[in-house]
């Protein structure tokens, strides 16, 4: 960022109540490549096991192991087969919060996030981290072709892809929480577009608008429908703040919780 731009930005932000400390951190703390793009994290060792792959297929692992041990074995083999095709990457951006008004969270640099869920969970945030996570589309073609010839095997690979995307998002969130902890900040639960109180068609463009280089850096694009390509991609925002409420979990805001078979909600 050029010096003159920094001065103008500082003037504006300080006028809006952003602290000098927050502004300096925003400008200087992030790696140089964020001047042009956003930080990309690719060093992920995804924790995948047969249980997560079975959950990824909508199956309770304990029940499957007892009834169909061969499906558990297939899940193990699918991990070995599918792992080389995964290309996990996370692009993120850390942005100071300027203020909240009428469910609209204004961010430094004229960006915003908006929705009842945003206002409800991020009101006390001093900054947010917006991120897009993807495991790429390497497995997608194999899965699609596999359904024509061996649906059971293809479903297992689909379970691997789903488990990998979930594992990546969880690992990214833990890393973002660690950023905050290092500075004495609490982290909110991760919020995803499509959750109750943050419609997909509103939330996705908000996040993608804050991450303009996501397509060029990690190959994730946003369809007009709000769908991300590759399909095994996740977008999220996490708030950081000294007095942030971190209670609860993302599933509490999922509209499909009552029929979900991908986690043990007590009804599987």
């Amino acid at each position, binding site marked *: 960022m050029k010096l003159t731009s920094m001065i103008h930005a500082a003037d504006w932000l300080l006028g809006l109540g952003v602290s000098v400390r927050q502004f300096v951190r925003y400008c200087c703390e992030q790696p140089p490549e964020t001047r042009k793009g956003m930080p990309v994290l690719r060093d992920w060792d995804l924790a995948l096991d047969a249980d997560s792959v*079975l959950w990824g*297929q*909508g*199956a*309770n692992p304990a*029940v*499957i192991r007892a*009834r*169909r041990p061969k*499906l558990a074995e297939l899940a193990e083999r699918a991990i070995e087969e599918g792992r080389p095709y995964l290309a996990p990457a996370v692009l993120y951006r850390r942005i100071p919060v300027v203020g909240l008004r009428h469910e609209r969270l204004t961010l430094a640099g004229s960006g915003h996030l908006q929705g009842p869920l945003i206002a409800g969970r991020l009101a006390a945030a001093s900054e947010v981290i917006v991120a897009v996570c993807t495991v790429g589309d390497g497995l997608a073609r194999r*899965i*699609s072709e596999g*359904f024509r010839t061996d*649906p*059971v095997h293809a*479903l*297992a690979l*689909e379970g691997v892809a789903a488990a990998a995307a979930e594992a990546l998002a969880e690992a990214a969130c833990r890393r973002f929480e660690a950023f905050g902890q290092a500075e004495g900040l609490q982290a909110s639960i991760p919020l995803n577009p499509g959750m109750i109180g943050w*419609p*997909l*068609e509103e939330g996705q463009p908000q996040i993608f608008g804050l991450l303009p280089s996501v397509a060029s850096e990690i190959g994730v694009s946003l*369809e*007009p*429908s*709000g*769908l991300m*390509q590759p*399909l095994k991609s996740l977008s999220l925002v996490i708030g950081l703040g000294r007095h942030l409420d971190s209670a609860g979990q993302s599933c509490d805001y999922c509209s*499909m919780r009552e*029929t979900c*078979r991908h986690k043990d909600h007590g*009804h*599987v």
Partner: protein
Amino acid sequence: MSESELLNGLRSAVIEGNIDAAERLAKQVVAEGVDPLRAFDEGLRQGIAEVGDGFACGDYFLPDLVLSAEAMKAASIVLEQEIARTGVVRERAGKVVIGTVEGDLHDIGKTIVGTLLAAHGFEVVDLGVNISAKAFLAAVREHEPQILGMSSLLTITAKELKKVIDALQEAGIRDTVKVMIGGGAVTKEFADSIGADGFAHDAELAVRVAKRVLEMD
């Protein structure tokens, strides 16, 4: 092995998802001159129905369903050949055209619905994903299915479902086909509001609804 033991074995092979056993027993049915249509009804269909019931109440899961469908398919191929050889005409459950609506690229759920419908004797034409209303209309005209099944996992693309139904209405062929919808974005209330004939939120239910809309049960 008695005939009833054979048919029970076939049913069990489907329930257990034992593809090899299902195929082997189907061949034994043929070799021993057991009525293949009876094997279909009392062996395969009862087996898959039991798995379907289990799935509906949460005891069985998607991998169980798909594995059992594959076992049924393996046995069906053998029995179909015998039925064709004897010249008996097996009554098809019906023809279904399925697809995911325009703007939505989700494939797996729709594909599994197609697999199960085929296992239950339906002829399935799978159009794929991101299918426009115009393409659905063309497919209905071309294939003349009894059922048009459409999937939408996204709330924003759910409006496409109504677009297709309206297109069928405008084309004057709405009454020629039953429309079933499903997917994460769909509810029964929404299905009723757009004039769909049936709604299902999972693959096994889709089969039951398909039979119901055709008044087969």
